[in-house]
C-alpha cells in the first residue's frame, strides 16, 4: 500500500518554535508526494494584521493538479490519503468540490480574498451545495490520514475544487507570523478502489447565544439515507470561543431524542483545538436508514468587541428590533463576534455527499 511505501516528512518546527523568544522560526515544510503518487496544494504566505481576520478561497481544476505531478489528467483522482499542515492562526482549512455558482466563481480568479466578514469568500451560501472533500480545524494542526484499504474519495478530472483558509489575528486567536497551509492529495490506483467515500457537512446558522439565554445548546440529526450499513471513518466539529461541548452520535434516523452517551463517537471540549477523529481509531457502523446526531453547547461570555458591536450586527444583519437586542452572538464567520456549529463527517460506501442544514 501507498502508506507503507511512502511517508512524507513533516516538520512542524514553526509550531515548536512558537514562544521561543528571538529564535527564528523554522519554516513549515510538507514534502509533496512523489510524481505519479499525488499532488500538493499550498496557500500563499499570508501576513494578517493585528485585529483582523482573513478568509481566502483558492480554486483548482483536478485535471490541472493531476498533470502538475505526473498523473494522467484524463483520469479520475482516487484520493486515498490526505495530509494537511498549517501554521498557527489558521482557524480552519476546508476543501470543497465546486458545484452551483452563486457569488464565488473560479472564473473570477484562482485566488479570491476576503477580510473581516466582508467578501464572497466569507459568505457561506456561496458554497451551500459544494460537497466536502477534507478539512482541518486545529490552529496548530496537522492531519495525516490514510483511508481504509480500498476506500477512495473519487474526484473527476473536470471538477473544480475550492480550498478555503481562515486566519485570525485578534484576541481569541493569533497569527504570529505569516500564515501558511499545505495539503497533500495521495492517490491510489483505480483497480484498488473497492468503496467510494462520501462526506457529510452540516451547519446551523439560526443560532443565538445571548446574555439572557447564556447556556444554550443546538441539536440536529442528519440522515445518510443508506440502504445498507455504512462506516463512519472521520469526524470533527467546529465552533468558536463560546463553544463548550461538541458531541456527535450515531443515530437511528427515526428518533427525536438525543442518543445515549454510549452512542457518542466524537467529543470536542476545545473550541480552538478540536480533535479530528479518524480511522483506524474511528470506524463506527451506522445501520441502514440511520445517520448522525450532533450537539453544540455554548456559554455566553462578554464579547471582546463589546455588546454594542454585537447589537449593531444583530440589527443590521438580522433586523432584530431594538427591544430584543441582548448582546447575542449569532451565526457568522468572524470569530471575535459570531458563532458556528458545523460538523464534518466522512463515511463509506458513498450514497451521496450530504448537506444537512
Amino acid at each position, binding site marked *: 500500500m501507498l502508506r507503507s511505501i511512502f511517508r512524507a516528512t513533516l516538520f512542524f518546527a514553526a509550531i515548536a518554535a512558537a514562544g521561543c523568544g528571538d529564535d527564528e522560526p523554522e519554516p513549515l515544510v510538507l514534502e509533496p508526494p512523489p510524481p505519479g503518487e499525488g499532488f500538493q496544494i499550498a496557500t500563499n504566505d499570508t501576513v494578517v494584521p493585528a485585529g483582523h481576520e482573513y478568509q481566502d478561497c483558492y480554486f483548482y481544476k483536478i485535471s490541472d493538479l493531476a498533470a502538475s505531478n505526473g498523473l494522467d489528467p484524463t483520469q479520475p483522482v482516487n484520493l486515498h490519503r490526505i495530509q494537511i499542515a498549517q501554521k498557527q492562526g489558521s482557524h480552519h482549512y476546508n476543501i470543497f468540490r465546486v458545484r452551483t455558482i452563486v457569488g464565488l466563481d473560479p472564473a473570477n480568479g484562482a485566488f479570491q480574498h476576503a477580510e473581516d466578514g466582508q467578501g464572497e469568500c466569507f459568505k457561506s*451560501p456561496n458554497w451551500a451545495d459544494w460537497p466536502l472533500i477534507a478539512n482541518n480545524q486545529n490552529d496548530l494542526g496537522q492531519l495525516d490520514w490514510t483511508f481504509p484499504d480500498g476506500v477512495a474519495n473519487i474526484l473527476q478530472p473536470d471538477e473544480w475544487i475550492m480550498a478555503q483558509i481562515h486566519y485570525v489575528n485578534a484576541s481569541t486567536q493569533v497569527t504570529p507570523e505569516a500564515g501558511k497551509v499545505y495539503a497533500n492529495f495521495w492517490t491510489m490506483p483505480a483497480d484498488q478502489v473497492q468503496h467510494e467515500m462520501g462526506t457529510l457537512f452540516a451547519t446551523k446558522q439560526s443560532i443565538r447565544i445571548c446574555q439572557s*439565554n447564556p447556556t444554550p445548546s443546538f441539536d440536529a440529526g442528519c440522515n445518510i439515507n443508506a440502504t445498507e450499513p455504512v462506516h463512519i471513518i472521520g469526524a470533527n466539529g467546529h465552533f468558536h470561543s463560546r463553544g463548550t461541548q461538541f458531541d456527535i452520535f450515531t443515530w437511528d434516523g427515526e428518533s*427525536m431524542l438525543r442518543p445515549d452517551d454510549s452512542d457518542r463517537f466524537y467529543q470536542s471540549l476545545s473550541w480552538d483545538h478540536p480533535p479530528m477523529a479518524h480511522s483506524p481509531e474511528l470506524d463506527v457502523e451506522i445501520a441502514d436508514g440511520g445517520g448522525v446526531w450532533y450537539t453544540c453547547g455554548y456559554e455566553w461570555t462578554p464579547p471582546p468587541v463589546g455588546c454594542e458591536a454585537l447589537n449593531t450586527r444583530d440589527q443590521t444583519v438580522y433586523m432584530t428590533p431594538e427591544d430584543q437586542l441582548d448582546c447575542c452572538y449569532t451565526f457568522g464567520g468572524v470569530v471575535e463576534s459570531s458563532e458556528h456549529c458545523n460538523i464534518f463527517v466522512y463515511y463509506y460506501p458513498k450514497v451521496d455527499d450530504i448537506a444537512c442544514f
Partner: protein
Amino acid sequence: MRAAVVAVGIVLCGCPGGDDEPPPDAGPPPCALPVVGDPADDIEIELVVLGDGGALDTLDEASPMQAVSLFKPPQGGRVIFAGVRARNLDPCGVQLGGGLRDIASDKIVPEMRTVNLEPDGQGWAGSDPADITTFSNIAVCPNQWSDRDAFELPYELSVAVRERGTGRTAQSVVTAVPRCSADVSHCEQGDAACTPEQLVADCECICDVDYVLGMNCR
C-alpha cells in the same frame, strides 16, 4: 385551536449546561421572564409555524393536511420554522424540539434548541415570529432523507418542549403538507436571484426525492 396537552413519555434530553444556572462570575443578567400560567398544572402547548408574510399559524391536531411553508433560511436549503405557544411553565431556557417525519418510511428530520419563550401578556409564552431562532429550524431540504418528495405530500410534524429544572414535557403532533414558499423575506440581503418564482422552482428541485447534492437546479 389549542392542541391537547400530551404528557408524553418523550423526554427531551438535557444539554450541556442546559439545566444549570449561569455561572456566578459570568456577569450576564439572568432570564427574568415570569412564569406563565400555573406551574402546578400540566404544561399546555399549541404547535405554531411561521407562515408567509411573517404570520404565526397555529396548527390543529385534529385537522388533516394543513399546509406549512418551506422557507429559504440564511444558510440555503429549505426549513420549516416550527414553534410553540405554551403555558404553565417557566419560559426561560426551554428545550424546544421539532421534527418532520416521513409517514411512509418513519424517517425523521429533527432539530432541538434552547430558547426563551416570549410571554404574550395573556398567560402564554411562545416563539416570536420576529425571531426565527425561537423556532425549531427543521431542515427539510435538500431532501437527502425522505423516500418521497418533501413538498405537497402529507408528513407528520411534531414539536415538544422540556422545562428547565423540572424536566416536565409536552408534545403536539399534526399532519402537515410542506409547501414551497414564495416569500422572499427570509432571503439574504442583496440576493438578486431571490425572486418568488425562483424560490419556488429551486425549492421544488432541492426537495425532490431524486435530488443529488450540487445538481443544477436551473
